[in-house]
């Protein structure tokens, strides 16, 4: 088949996968174009659908709807053995009953390649992966790293049009992984084969890829070059997943002015005043100064030495900033922070779900604004349980220190109720903005804890009204992370 240099080698069009046995929607409306010779990475947390998408390209899973085109012709229903695509499996999947030569030769034998050609190609590809002379070794005598190279060799020897790699370095230790990353990248440059790579390791993705597809919950969040994805994340998820970020809910207060994180900042994005936004600030874009010169002030709560820089956590009111600095700071000292306009990335909050953070108090109760939220630790950390001596362990049996757990609470605007009784709700604030949206009013409430909440209500309140926000615990969704 004749193909142009810049033609798409593979295209996925509205690909959706719903598993028949449990109705689980693993991938929904996935669209992607991959050019010949590109190194594309599917990046996302486990369960985001990246492996399922790869399996549909390989042919192990058939999409429930949508189309997959290879060189312009549909291969959606083609079985794997009829596709010019080879896979490097997560756990290598080398045939344990064959030696290395037979493992690598397996694909060529299916194509009825003459024996002398097979021998030559096997030798050549073993050279390529730096394991010359391993033909007669048994799989079980090889180390993990060597098995991984054989798995790559077994796929490459078939000269596939596309090489799929499913978290191929996941089982290797850090040093080996970094070496293999460089080698894989070299191989890609040398061979000119299209690579589609799956990983949950953002650093790996940024290092190796020409193009990254960030996925979450079966949906594509953003497609772009590593630089695009890092510098211009399209939404809070991407910002949070790629690199360290400070993410704040906020509101536009004027032309190129935004309020978030306890301060008011000038930014470069022109968004209409009153718009509910998500602001992302990279830790390296925050500069520490003395308190008087800072745009916001805060207390240093922790300092971690990371080799080339310090990672400094600053608590400013209820907002937490992570700052990377080459200068040290003292824990407990008050510092000022400066953020330049181009260090602030403003995104429209795509849904207006309110996000706030709460901690466990000494009684292991979740608390926000000094008030307890009536839920239990075991509900927030699934599978966790209290041992007889009072320690908390998670599903894997590891001890959890509730003081080191940060709980992210999400609640939708329509689930929050406003009251003028100061003690009725979790937190009090003033109405900073209101918009009538047809059947209800959408309010922005600026709370005493310097956070903006969006609340939908059918009744009219006035600008500046002081209200208390009632948030039913059964409408909250909890996620947690370790501090």
């Amino acid at each position, binding site marked *: 088949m004749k193909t142009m240099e810049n033609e798409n080698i593979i295209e996925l069009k509205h690909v959706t996968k719903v598993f028949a046995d449990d109705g689980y929607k693993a991938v929904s409306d996935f669209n992607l174009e991959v050019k010949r010779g590109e190194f594309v990475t599917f990046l996302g947390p486990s369960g985001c659908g990246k492996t399922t998408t790869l399996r549909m390209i390989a042919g192990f899973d058939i999409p429930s709807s949508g189309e997959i085109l290879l060189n312009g012709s549909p291969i959606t229903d083609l079985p794997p053995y009829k596709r010019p695509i*080879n896979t490097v499996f997560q756990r290598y999947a080398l045939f344990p009953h064959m030696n290395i030569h037979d493992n690598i030769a397996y694909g060529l034998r299916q194509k009825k390649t003459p024996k002398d050609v097979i021998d030559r190609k096997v030798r050549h590809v073993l050279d390529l992966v730096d394991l010359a002379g391993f033909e007669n070794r048994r799989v079980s005598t090889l180390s993990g790293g060597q098995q991984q190279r054989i798995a790559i060799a077994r796929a490459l020897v078939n000269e596939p049009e596309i090489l799929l790699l499913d978290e191929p370095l996941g089982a290797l230790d850090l040093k080996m992984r970094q070496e293999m990353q460089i080698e894989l990248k070299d191989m890609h440059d040398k061979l000119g084969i299209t690579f589609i790579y799956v990983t949950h390791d953002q650093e790996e993705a940024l290092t190796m890829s020409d193009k990254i597809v960030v996925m979450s919950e079966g949906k594509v969040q953003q497609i772009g070059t590593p630089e695009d994805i890092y510098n211009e994340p399209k939404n809070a998820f991407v910002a949070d997943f790629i690199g360290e970020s400070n993410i704040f809910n906020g509101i536009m207060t004027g032309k190129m002015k935004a309020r978030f994180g306890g301060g008011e900042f000038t930014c470069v994005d022109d968004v209409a005043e009153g718009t509910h936004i998500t602001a992302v600030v990279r830790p390296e874009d925050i500069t520490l100064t003395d308190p008087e010169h800072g745009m916001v002030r805060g207390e240093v709560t922790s300092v971690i030495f990371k080799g080339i820089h310090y990672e400094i956590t600053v608590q400013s009111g209820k907002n937490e900033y992570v700052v990377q600095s080459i200068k040290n700071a003292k824990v407990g000292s008050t510092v000022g922070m400066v953020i330049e306009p181009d260090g602030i990335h403003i995104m429209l909050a795509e849904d207006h779900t309110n996000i706030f953070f709460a901690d466990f108090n000494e009684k292991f109760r979740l608390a926000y604004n000094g008030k307890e939220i009536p839920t239990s630790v075991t509900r927030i950390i699934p599978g966790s349980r209290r041992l007889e001596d009072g320690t908390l362990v998670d599903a894997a049996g590891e001890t959890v220190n509730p003081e080191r757990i940060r709980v992210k609470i999400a609640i939708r605007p329509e689930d929050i109720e406003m009251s003028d009784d100061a003690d009725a709700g979790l937190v009090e604030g003033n109405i900073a903005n209101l918009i009538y949206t047809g059947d209800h009013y959408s309010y922005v409430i600026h709370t005493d804890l310097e956070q903006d909440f969006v609340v939908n209500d059918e009744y009219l309140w006035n600008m500046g009204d002081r209200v208390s926000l009632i948030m039913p615990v059964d409408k909250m969704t909890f996620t947690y992370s370790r501090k």
Partner: protein
Amino acid sequence: MKFSRKSLGIPYLVFLVLFVVLPLIVLFWYAFTDGTGHFTVTNFTGFFTDPNALGTLLYSFAIAAVTTAVCLLLAYPTAYFLATSRLKSKSVIVMIFVMPMWINFSLRITALKEVLTVIEGNLAMHPFLNSVIGMTYDFLPFMILPIYTTISRLDGALTEAAMDLGADPRTTFLTVTLPLSVPGIISGVSMVFLPAMTNYVVLDMLYNSTYIMGSLIGSYFAAYNWNGGSMIALILLAIICLFTLLTGDDGEEDAQRGGALL
């Protein structure tokens, strides 16, 4: 700590000495002596010069071989289907296959006898066939279980890898699944073949009057020829040993090849 753990094995050691080692010594003693207690090899040469005894050996082999082959042919596809299907009630189906083992052995064979009588009329007309049917009925679960276990434990990524490399489903089965299920086949075969050579109760109950190894030994002891009976038992033991060593070797090598898999 070390001492107390070792001492846990003492009860079995006593059992082993009393019921395995001592009887074996006695067996050897009888096999190589004559009725008056003098050393002799006539029991040994006698077996290999007696055409009746050799015929019994051959007949036992034939019954065991055919039974094993039938069991394998029935069990492999069943086990393969069960292990690779996405059925939700898999364990229930496996249990149904194993359930006949919960019913008393002689009751099971008696029931089978009645069924066969209805079908064939006179059971004595097809003694070999009936014996094979009886033994297959008896031993089938022992063939299904190990094969099922081996195939279920196979890494699904291996068959996917084969398909990914261009092998159609048939080639994938022949070059990956089948070779990797050999350890299960071997353990199934040894659990069927060896008992089938000696289980004369099935033959007796199904009116097959031909001797197999088990009944031959029984007949010697019934005639108070303890020396001859012991020698045949010993020869059978040697055959079984040889068989186990041969297949066991293979199994071990395969386990090694399979690495952590098997």
